[in-house]
């Protein structure tokens, strides 16, 4: 266990000889961004507006360019990430979300764009000292006091306690000016976090009944009509969600060739997975149902029980109509009746 003064954090970040992505405040909103001199760090922010999903899976990325010159077509493929970088200050829920994304992108056939970014990232996590009312990561087995990272930081008073969990984490931590520290304050901090999370309104949601065995029953529930009524189909939930991983690949005509890009897509949209014969989900009810069935039923049924919700609560805060996964779990879960 090591420690350093909170006031030293920025100088440590500045000294890291590779790109660092971390929560930064800009005009009142905190988002992950690359560190540069002069940015306003927001390491204490429990919940960034969007998750750090962008670091591994950006909202837009070029895949390749085709350029037409006379009778020749030249193809330039986008280079894969080849440089190590640090994701600093990530929270336990968002890091668990990477494991959900891994199931999708690292399964055969491996997504090489994602895999390269995943491989080169070093994750310095921040334990969640102040969970918010919208947090319910514990329901999905996430421990906000012990994120699954390379290095973990715990804030105790005006100091950060730091411990590494992997070889590359140890190497990074060893390069920082830190002092040896006792385990006891971290133990107390962890107990405090557990107590705080336990007192949150959604801490004890019951997931009983959300599994492959209840798939047909849940799918056919008459409650989806009311649950989805006010849905605007805006997809804010899917964009803010750390585990939503659907994307579209499109060609943009540049006038002298084609730029092939990938962008986030959303099951909330009317043209999502549109086929020649039309859409299998003609109204917002089907689209809305799809999103939650995927998170709570289809994904765990296909991935050894791993839910694709991590309880970050962003959808609870973001939905303009206050629809969210908590309402779905309460309305349809057997354990919440």
């Amino acid at each position, binding site marked *: 266990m090591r420690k350093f003064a909170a006031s030293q954090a920025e100088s440590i970040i500045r000294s890291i000889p590779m790109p660092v992505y971390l929560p930064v405040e800009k*005009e009142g909103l905190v988002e992950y961004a690359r560190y540069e001199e002069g940015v306003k760090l927001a390491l204490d922010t429990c919940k960034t*507006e969007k998750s750090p999903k962008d670091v591994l899976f950006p909202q837009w990325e070029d895949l390749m360019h085709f350029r037409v010159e006379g009778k020749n077509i030249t193809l330039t493929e986008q280079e894969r990430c080849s440089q190590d970088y640090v994701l600093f200050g990530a929270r336990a829920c968002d890091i668990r979300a990477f494991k959900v994304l891994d199931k999708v992108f690292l399964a055969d056939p491996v997504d090489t764009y994602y895999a390269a970014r995943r491989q080169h990232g070093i994750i310095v996590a921040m334990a969640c000292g102040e969970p918010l009312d919208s947090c319910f990561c514990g329901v999905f087995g996430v421990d906000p006091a012990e994120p699954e990272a390379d290095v973990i930081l715990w804030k105790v008073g005006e100091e950060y306690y730091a411990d590494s969990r992997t070889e590359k984490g140890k190497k990074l931590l060893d390069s920082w000016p830190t002092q040896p520290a006792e385990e006891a304050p971290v133990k107390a901090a962890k107990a405090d976090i557990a107590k705080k999370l336990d007192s949150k309104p959604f801490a004890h949601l019951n997931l009983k009944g959300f599994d492959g065995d209840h798939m047909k029953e849940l799918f056919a529930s008459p409650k989806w009509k009311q649950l989805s009524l*006010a849905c605007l189909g805006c997809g804010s939930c899917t964009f803010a969600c750390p585990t939503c991983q659907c994307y579209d690949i499109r060609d943009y005509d540049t006038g002298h060739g084609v730029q092939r890009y990938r962008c986030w897509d959303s099951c909330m949209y009317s*043209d999502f997975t*549109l086929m020649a014969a039309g859409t299998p989900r003609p109204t917002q009810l089907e689209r809305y149902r799809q999103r939650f069935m995927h998170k709570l039923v289809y994904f765990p049924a296909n991935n050894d029980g791993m839910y694709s919700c991590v309880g970050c609560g962003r959808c609870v805060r973001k939905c303009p109509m206050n629809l969210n996964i908590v*309402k779905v779990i309460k309305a349809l879960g057997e354990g919440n009746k």
Partner: protein
Amino acid sequence: MQVIANAIKKRALELLADGTVARVLGWQPGEQQSDWSPALFESADDMKDFVYGKYAGANLSKTCLKFNKAEGKTLVVLKPCDALSFNQLLKEHRLNRDKFYIIGAGCKGMEDENGLLLKCQCCKGKTFEVFDEVIDDEESRRLPPSDRFEQVARLEKMTHQERFDFWRSELSRCIRCNACRNVCPACTCQKCVFDNPDSGVAAKANTTDFEENMFHIIRAFHVAGRCTDCGECSRVCPQHIPLHLLNRKFIKDIDELYGDYQAGIGEEERTPLTTYTKTDADPGVVHERGNE
């Protein structure tokens, strides 16, 4: 507000019981104090969850589109500003008046967890443009003083560059979720050009970072003269972009160039932007307006 809420609930139950309406469109409480959602109630039993009060900020007029062809009448609870949106939709033949029973609900300003909603800080009025009955009290008719064009005027005083920088910065946060478009009662195309893969502009990604900026400006042009300033666009924006200021700029310009006009008022008529009079401003007026 509780008195108004109880009276609305009582009336809705009566109208459901005697068959005047087949369903009620209102709000239900959420999991936290302020996270109410629009909801549909189809029986007296459903109505147990019905609420009305300071967290009923959502404008239900556009949701009415879903019930235009439903069997029987739908009772909808509208606040004064919502009634303007509803009436605008009637004027555009998007809603069928006969399919709705409107209870005008007295409003004292709506809130969310951060206090009074932005749209309520500039309340536009307490009268109901369209209704079957009004459930109100004296207190909810009191209009707080406000100047809804104050921020617009401040933007107008900026230089071109300052204003450009302001909007570039605000709009750079846009994630193109289209919540503003989807909630907007003036945006009622059955198929938006941006959702149509055949349009060639289905914008799931922006080819340049200027594109989403243009989207909002063009959308504001499209709803100009029809936007009632209901403020839902800014309320629902997950990135907190003050989109209502674009609309208010158009409203202010229309007021100044063609005389005071409030979209959503009156019955079918020629509106400032769909009619011509000899006293209309010449296009050249743009050279005399703005700074620099």
